[in-house]
Structure formats: structure tokens, C-alpha cells
């Protein structure tokens, strides 16, 4: 999938540059942003399959009431690790993979500012993932308190929790190093003439995302450090018996956790903002307002964290504040949605696979946003907190949101990365299969939540059976659709038709000015941007 290490603009040569190692050492020691992007993307897909396997095990157990396959403690580990793997192993590394491939090319930079740091940022991740997954096999099993690791349960848990804490430290370090790299690259290495307000929106969304990462990943690191010291070094940050406050853990965790969800969605916004103008053959509507809306979302994301905590016993004034702030954050998000629609309005549209995923994203992410608004209303949230309504909401925004946008981005940029075109017919089948099975899986969860089914339960009363059966069938269909995606990518890499430099007529960013596949080194001489 990555370009051949070759300085010349050749698409199909198999010569390797004299200075670059070959084979496995190429991948271990690479400092090339394209290679590192490829590593991130393949790593994220492997983790996506791992997290998906855990999800299908969960759905298998929940197909019928009663315990059929796993015991309740292991079920809790499944839900915990599913969340941790998908968030920290799949979505976030995929976003960084897109950033590595695209940001330098889109701003006309030769590479990232700190190329060796870039390598270290990636290679920390497989080690952290191994630590996380191997926690299943230690005495006591993997962490089982939910991916949010709430105290006091997490203070009492076994060795698996310590491994989870270390894995989170390592992944946090990777994210912080990566963000420093991305911000420095964007601020200092833009081509002459590429002002901030001329950058592609994908670069803007990653600039803002990187600032969010730098601010909140250390907060998570501090939180789990305090959890570690409570567990082993006699402190009582979150231990009520020692004078600490378990609810404080929730405050600090969600101070990280809410910006974290915007960290996962903003790069997806950037990808959609790139795909829509291309296939509408119109410039993005309201570029400046899109930049300001993204920045507003990022700043407001620091002010809404306690909407995850409406049931902890907060004073009404506090609940009102967070309710109003949460509703307020819907305003800049709505600006973005309207701008996307306005971009398409009276455009000369074609519906290739990337465009299908982008439009699917708009429709389904908006639905997820609406359920988020429902949950923002405190008295409603007090009923729906910790029910399947919440599960439906965040899967709509993260799966139909982030994941669909990432699929669109892969289809959009695969010709540039690999020099090969994917099979358009199969791509469309993948889209429709994912779209239908996703909705079959997660739409019924709204009904389950409204009917009162709690989340993170291994068993449920019989009245919830029907919709759980539907959701499980949909989940297996969704999983199969992703195997199709893997086949589509591998088929393209092996047998795909040669891709031109600009396979999409309406594409106008800098990466389309270089050949396909992109040469190993691009923009060694900065382009002149008018």
C-alpha cells in the first residue's frame, strides 16, 4: 500500500533507493511519513478487527437472555477491552495514519517536522496493544469496569488493570508526541504562500485535534497515574475511606473524555470536508466559518464534561450549566452540517464510493447528534443514563461518523497512496452493506434504551429479546461487510487498474499534483502556492 522508496516520479518501478533499508528493517526504522502512515493504517485495521471480534462475542452472548457463552466477569472484560481497543487502537491510530500520509503533502512539506519522533510515536502502539490484549491471560483477567475505569472498582481490580494503566500511559505518550509533531509541521513547514486560511480543511481539523490531544492526553495520564498510586502506593485520591472522592475520578476522566470524543470526530469532519467538494465539483461552502466552527467545537468541548455525570448528585445549577453548554456545542456542529449541504447544493455531483460514505456520514452522524441533544437534556438523561440509548448514540457518531468517514478517506486516497484503483462496484456494495447492517445493529438500541435496558449487562429480562436478536444479526452482517472491505483493498493493491495522478476530476489539493503512487519523497522543493 505504501509507495516504493524511490526518488523519481515513477509509479511502477521496483528499485529501492540506495540509502533505504529493505524488508522488515525498512518498516522498523522508517522515518518517512508515507511509510509511517501506512503502518498506522494497517495497525488500526488489525485492531479494528480485534475489537470487532470482541463485539461479536458480546453480541453472541446477548442474542438471547441467559448466559450461554461466557461468564459475566469475562463479559465485562469484553465490553471494557472492546471500548479501549476501538478508541485507542482503531479510531485514533487511523486518524493519525491519515494525518501522516496527507498533512505533509497537503501543505507542501517534505515530511513531518520530527521524522524520527514520528517513528517512535508509531512503534509504541503495537507494544501497548500487546500489553492490553495480553491482560486477558493474567490471573484475574483483563480490566472489567468499562473503558471509563471508574473508581472505586478500578482501585480494587487485579493485575489486568495495571496492564491497562500502563498501556494507556504508552498510548498517551504516543499521541502527545504525534500531536507535537503535527502542530510543528503545520505551523512551521507550510509551503510559501500557503497561509493558514489557505490550508485544506483536513489540515485545519488536524491542527485543532492535535491541540486537543496535547491538552487532554496528559490529563488522562494524570488520572490513571493517580489510580495507580491509589492501587499500590497508599494514596487516597479516589478512595473515600482515605478521604478521597470517587466522583472526582469521573470529573477528571470526563475532562479528558469529552474532548477525546471530539478528537475522534474532528479528523472525520476534515475528511468529509475534502470529499464533498471534490464530488460536488464546487468549492467547500463557507471555508472560514468551517474553520471557526471547528475551533469553537474544540473550545466548547472543554466545558461540557459533566453531561456524562448527570446522575452523580450534582447540584441543579451545575446540571443546568452543563446542559446549556452541551446544547450550545450543537450550534457550530450544525453550522458544519449546513455548510456540507450547501456545498452539495446545485453541485454537479457523482456518487463514487467516497462520496457515498461522505453522504452516509452526514445523514447518520446528524442522527447521532440528535440523540446527543436528547441526552443533553438533564431530566431525560437521568432516565437514559447507562441505558442502550447511550450505546446507540455513541455508535452512531463514532461508527457511522468516524468510521464511515475513514472508509471514505481510504477509498478517496487509496489511488494516490498505492497507484491502483479499487473496484468501484465492490466499493459500493461495501457501502450499502455497511449502511444497512449498521442501522440494523444500532437503531433498535434506541428502543432498548428507551424501554429501560441497561448497558454493560451480560444478561437481560426477556422483554428485551426481540431487538437484541435483530441487533446481533445486524452486527454479524456488519462484521462480514468489513471482511469485504479487506478483500477490496487487497484486490486493489494486487490487481487494481493503474491510477492517474488525479483520478477525481474535482480534486484540487496539493497531493493530486504529484504522481500516483506518490513518490517516496515529495515536495523536497516547496511548491509555490498562489
Amino acid at each position, binding site marked *: 500500500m505504501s509507495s516504493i522508496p524511490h526518488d523519481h516520479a515513477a509509479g511502477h518501478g521496483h528499485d529501492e533507493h540506495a540509502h533505504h533499508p529493505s524488508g522488515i528493517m525498512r518498516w522498523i526504522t522508517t522515518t518517512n511519513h508515507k511509510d509511517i502512515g501506512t503502518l498506522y493504517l494497517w495497525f488500526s485495521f488489525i485492531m479494528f478487527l480485534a475489537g470487532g471480534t470482541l463485539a461479536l462475542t458480546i453480541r453472541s452472548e446477548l442474542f438471547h437472555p441467559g448466559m450461554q457463552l461466557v461468564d459475566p466477569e469475562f463479559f465485562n472484560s469484553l465490553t471494557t477491552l472492546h471500548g479501549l481497543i476501538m478508541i485507542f487502537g482503531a479510531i485514533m491510530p487511523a486518524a493519525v495514519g491519515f494525518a501522516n500520509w496527507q498533512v505533509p503533502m497537503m501543505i507542501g512539506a517534505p515530511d513531518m*517536522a520530527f521524522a524520527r519522533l514520528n517513528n517512535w510515536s508509531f512503534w509504541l502502539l503495537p507494544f501497548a496493544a500487546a500489553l492490553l490484549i495480553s491482560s486477558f491471560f493474567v490471573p484475574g483477567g483483563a480490566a472489567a469496569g468499562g473503558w471509563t475505569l471508574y473508581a472505586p472498582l478500578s482501585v480494587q481490580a487485579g493485575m489486568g488493570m495495571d496492564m491497562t494503566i500502563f498501556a494507556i500511559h504508552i498510548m498517551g505518550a504516543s499521541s502527545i508526541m504525534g500531536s507535537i509533531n503535527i502542530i510543528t509541521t503545520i505551523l512551521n513547514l507550510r509551503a510559501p504562500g500557503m497561509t493558514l486560511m489557505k490550508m485544506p480543511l483536513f489540515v485545519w481539523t488536524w491542527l485543532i485535534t492535535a491541540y486537543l490531544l496535547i491538552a487532554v492526553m496528559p490529563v488522562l495520564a494524570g488520572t490513571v497515574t493517580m489510580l495507580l498510586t491509589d492501587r499500590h502506593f497508599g494514596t487516597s485520591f479516589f478512595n473515600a475511606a482515605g478521604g478521597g472522592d470517587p466522583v*472526582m475520578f469521573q470529573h477528571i476522566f470526563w475532562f479528558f473524555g469529552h474532548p477525546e470524543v471530539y478528537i475522534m470526530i474532528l479528523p472525520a469532519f476534515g475528511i468529509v470536508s475534502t470529499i464533498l467538494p471534490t464530488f460536488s465539483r464546487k468549492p467547500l461552502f463557507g*471555508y472560514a466559518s468551517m474553520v471557526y466552527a471547528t475551533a469553537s467545537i474544540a473550545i466548547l468541548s472543554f466545558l461540557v464534561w459533566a453531561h456524562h455525570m448527570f446522575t452523580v448528585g450534582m447540584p441543579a445549577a451545575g446540571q443546568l450549566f452543563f446542559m446549556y453548554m452541551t446544547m450550545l456545542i450543537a450550534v457550530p456542529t450544525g453550522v458544519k452540517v449546513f455548510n456540507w449541504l450547501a456545498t452539495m447544493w446545485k453541485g454537479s455531483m457523482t456518487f463514487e464510493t467516497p462520496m457515498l460514505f461522505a453522504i452516509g456520514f452526514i445523514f447518520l452522524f446528524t442522527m447521532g447528534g440528535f440523540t446527543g441533544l436528547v441526552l443533553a437534556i438533564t431530566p431525560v438523561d437521568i432516565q437514559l443514563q447507562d441505558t442502550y440509548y447511550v450505546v446507540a448514540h455513541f455508535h452512531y457518531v463514532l461508527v457511522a461518523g468516524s468510521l464511515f468517514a475513514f472508509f471514505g478517506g481510504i477509498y478517496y486516497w487509496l489511488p494516490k497512496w498505492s497507484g491502483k484503483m479499487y473496484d468501484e462496484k465492490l466499493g459500493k456494495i461495501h457501502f450499502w452493506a455497511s449502511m444497512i447492517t449498521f442501522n440494523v445493529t444500532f437503531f433498535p438500541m434506541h428502543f432498548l434504551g428507551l424501554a429501560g435496558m441497561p448497558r454493560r449487562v451480560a444478561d437481560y429480562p426477556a422483554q428485551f429479546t426481540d431487538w437484541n436478536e435483530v441487533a446481533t444479526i445486524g452486527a454479524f452482517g456488519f462484521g462480514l461487510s468489513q471482511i469485504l472491505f479487506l478483500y477490496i483493498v487487497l484486490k486493489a493493491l494486487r490487481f487494481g487498474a493503474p491510477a492517474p495522478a488525479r483520478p477525481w476530476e474535482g480534486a484540487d489539493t496539493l497531493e493530486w499534483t504529484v504522481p500516483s503512487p506518490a513518490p517516496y519523497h515529495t515536495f523536497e522543493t516547496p511548491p509555490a502556492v498562489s
Partner: protein
Amino acid sequence: MPVSKPDDQRNAQRGANLRTALILLSIAAVFFGGIIASQYTGGNAVGIGVLGFAIIGFLLVTIGRKLRGDPSKTERR
């Protein structure tokens, strides 16, 4: 072969990159140390409020410096 910049241009670029990275690292350090220190120093809301204003302050300073220093800042798409 990659085109090489003059050494002084490369050193200036490297220096600028390091300065930017150090500022960003200091944001991370403030948040890491701050969230732990806030547990010792007083009200929880105070701690979180200080951190929140710190990040907004950093953002304003950094973006403001960049906009002031950008010679083509009046250009618009």
C-alpha cells in the same frame, strides 16, 4: 536526490521546530502536573478551571503570535 537547503536555513528551521515543540510540551506538562497538583491545592472546580483557562490562554497566545507574524495574513481564500 533531495535538494538540500543551505545549512543556516536548515538550522533556523530546526530551531523554530524545537521552540514550537517545547511550547507544546509545556502545555502537556501543565496539564499533567496541574491535574495532580489540583488535588492537593484546593477546590476541585478551581483546579479544573485553572487548567481550562491555561489552555485557552496558550491557544490565544500561540494563534495570536502566528497571526501577527504571518506577512500574508490579510489574504483570504
